[in-house]
């Protein structure tokens, strides 16, 4: 074969590939596109169904109400990408609110109280990370165990009852606004931006994806799998702690029974957002959409005053429907 012919073949192939490529790109991004469309359709339907839905305040309220679970969901996205899972998040939320409350009530001062809270939350992450990563034990079981353990500790610390506390700054964090936007929304967006950046632009973030793709291969590629996975659970702990602080800031109380079922709520948002339970794949933008869809559904139901039983039914149908239209993630 002579050169000119060869280059012809290549050119032909190139043209073909360009087409294929564009198709592929569209498909790979299409899930998020479809999800956005599902989101918009939902907004349109709800705006149509309720005159009070499509207002700035309502959207602000939706975001505000999403802050706690959203932050957890972002962290959970990272954990799932690393091929892990963390069921203890709800308990850590409660436990953090309790630590904050008890420290403040003990007169420790805000900086110390915040430090203790964050340290306590990270400790749980470290604990999970140690068992999952160093001892290589199933994360489902370990975090199920710590879910129970940490909840118990929260109850024991505060003595079973939710308790109020006082702190102007915390109160401002929970209910204050800056430029008309509530502080928790800033927290939510900050976490989203920072975590997206970390996942995309740092070696750590790429290592998390790599580990989720194939842990063994990651190890053989010289990635410090143990350290990275510990870090993943620590960050998850930290984020759950922040969520706990926000919860306390919004309720002015340490609530040991708070956050029950948050693990499932977060998983719903994350998986609806296209992150895979098998690890290695997932995007925070998807999680944001997933969180919004769930929040929209709830808000819409509240607006329309759908009775509880029918809320359950419609929630189920909407989840299945949204997933089916956005579908084909396998």
């Amino acid at each position, binding site marked *: *074969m002579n050169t000119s012919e060869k280059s012809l073949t290549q050119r032909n192939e190139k043209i*073909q590939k360009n087409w294929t490529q564009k198709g592929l790109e569209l498909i790979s991004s299409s899930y998020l596109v479809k999800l956005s469309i599902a989101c918009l359709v939902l907004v349109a339907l709800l705006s149509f169904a309720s005159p009070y839905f499509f207002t700035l305040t309502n959207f602000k309220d939706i975001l505000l109400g999403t802050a706690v679970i959203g932050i957890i969901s972002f962290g959970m996205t990272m954990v799932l990408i690393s091929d892990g899972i963390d069921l203890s998040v709800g308990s850590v939320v409660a436990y953090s609110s309790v630590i904050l409350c008890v420290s403040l009530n003990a007169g420790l001062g805000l900086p110390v109280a915040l430090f203790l809270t964050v340290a306590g939350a990270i400790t749980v992450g470290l604990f999970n990370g140690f068992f999952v990563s160093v001892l290589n034990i199933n994360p489902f079981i370990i975090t199920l165990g710590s879910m129970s353990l940490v909840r118990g500790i929260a109850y024991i610390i505060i003595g079973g009852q939710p308790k109020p506390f006082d702190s102007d700054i915390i109160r401002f964090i929970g209910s204050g606004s800056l430029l008309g936007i509530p502080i928790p929304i800033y927290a939510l967006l900050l976490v989203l931006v920072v975590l997206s950046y970390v996942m995309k632009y740092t070696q750590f973030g790429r290592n998390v994806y*790599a580990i989720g793709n194939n842990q063994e*291969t*990651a190890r053989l590629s*010289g990635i410090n799998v143990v350290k990275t996975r510990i870090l993943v659970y620590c960050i998850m702990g930290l984020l759950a702690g922040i969520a706990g602080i926000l919860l306390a800031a919004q309720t002015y109380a340490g609530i040991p029974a708070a956050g029950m079922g948050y693990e499932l709520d977060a998983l719903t948002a994350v998986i609806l957002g296209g992150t895979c339970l098998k690890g290695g794949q997932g995007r925070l933008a998807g999680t944001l959409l997933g969180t919004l869809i769930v929040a929209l559904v709830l808000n819409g139901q509240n607006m329309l005053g759908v009775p509880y039983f029918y809320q359950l039914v419609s929630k189920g149908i909407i989840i299945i429907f949204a997933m089916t239209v956005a579908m084909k993630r396998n």
Partner: protein
Amino acid sequence: MNQSALRISNIVKSFNGIKALKGLTLNFNKGEIIGLVGSNGAGKSTLLNVIWGAYAPDSGELYIDGERIEKITPTKAQELGISIIFQHRRLMPYMTVAENIFIDNMPKKKGVIDYKKMRTDAKELLDVLNLDIDCNIKVERLSAEEKQLVEIVKAYSKQPKVLLMDEPTTALRQGDVERLFELMNTLKSQGSSVVFISHRLKEVMEICDRISIIRDGGNVSEGEKLDYSPDRIVEEMSGITATDFEHQRDVTDSSFSKASQEVLLSASSLSVDNCQDIEFALHKGEILGFAGLGGSGVENIFEALYGLKTHVDGDIKIDGVDVEIHSPIDAISYGLGFVSEDRQLNGEFLELSVKDNICIPKGQKKRLYSVINRKEETLASKGFIEKLNIKTDSEEQLIKNLSGGNQQKAIIAKWLHLQSKVILMCEPTAGIDVAAKSDVNKLIQQIALEGKGILYTSSYITELMHVSDRIIVVYQGRIIKVFSRAEYDHNKIYLAMNGINEQIGAKHEH
């Protein structure tokens, strides 16, 4: 310069009590390409894994640049300038090509990953191998062949002092192999040591300076390539005299059956994806070879016949009856079998036993609630283990614990066991050693003799010529030429595969 780059001595490694390496001693010098040769299950891959620190050896020593390394880990191996290509592909399927190439150390600007630089760097590297792969697409979208090429680029990108390559050419085509060889020579001229594992002796004889032969986890011999003949290699790696492999060297050997005139399977004006107007007939007792470059569409045709494609036009007849094949279930019910190209992707059930792997397709003929006949299955799988010389301690062993070549044999066994009328085989002998290749090909020949038909494709023209009764060459989705056995000529086939066909009788003119 005969300085040792890497030396191992007395390496012992056992799995569950069985010694895979029984005190192996090897030395790889700088500026040399060493061919590591041995039959399936000899311990080649295990050895590389030990050197990389993926497996901890039971005992033995490892020296790099003459210095003893106490405990090697992948990280350490990397730091010491070793690079590796595993037999089982080790890419991250959901990450892009560029990310895979730089997985452990991505280009950064102020600590932040510099995607632009990563892409240009990746592109540069891909260009070295003359590859036209978009470095932004996810690896899962690549063909087996492209994945292999990316692995090569990835290993090469480190500019390693020692490059360990476990069957890098199994999934490659001729042109790519040549480019790989250029690359190996570049490394060699830079003073690196390159370890090359391949079951294609021709390649070993062509590129290597030295040859090390191992058998059953122990050393057999080692020396300059010039001291070796193919016969000697085969003899030493298998422990059997070379006369048994005679026909392996003789392309025009005509021990093959004369196919009957009765048509078993025929396709007319078949079109799928990029393929159009595909027409051919497979006769009873015939082994029909398909040749084509990457992307020519051969695989599309095979997949269409097996019901794996959604948009297929044209007629397919089996035993003269029109059939519609929409799924593998249909295909199997019409008596087809399918050895897929990508064993790791869709060929095997890693966590199941050799026996289950062999017997599952046949089991589908029974009802879901029917009880598995364990005696029968044990007997059948034992038979195949013997016939194909599958190296395993028992048929109950999980298939993932077999060596690569032996896994491939088990996969062939499952389709032989199904006793299909027609078997579609994509690269069936990938990674299978010389002796076993002959066994496999004899078996294929034997089932053809029983009046069945085989559609066979291989990127290795010599093998195709050896095995098949006729060869159909596909170029850019069209059948460009059909060679009968009498017309076989390596060069002509190669040219046809590249779209060059001077002879009259071409099916379609361009």
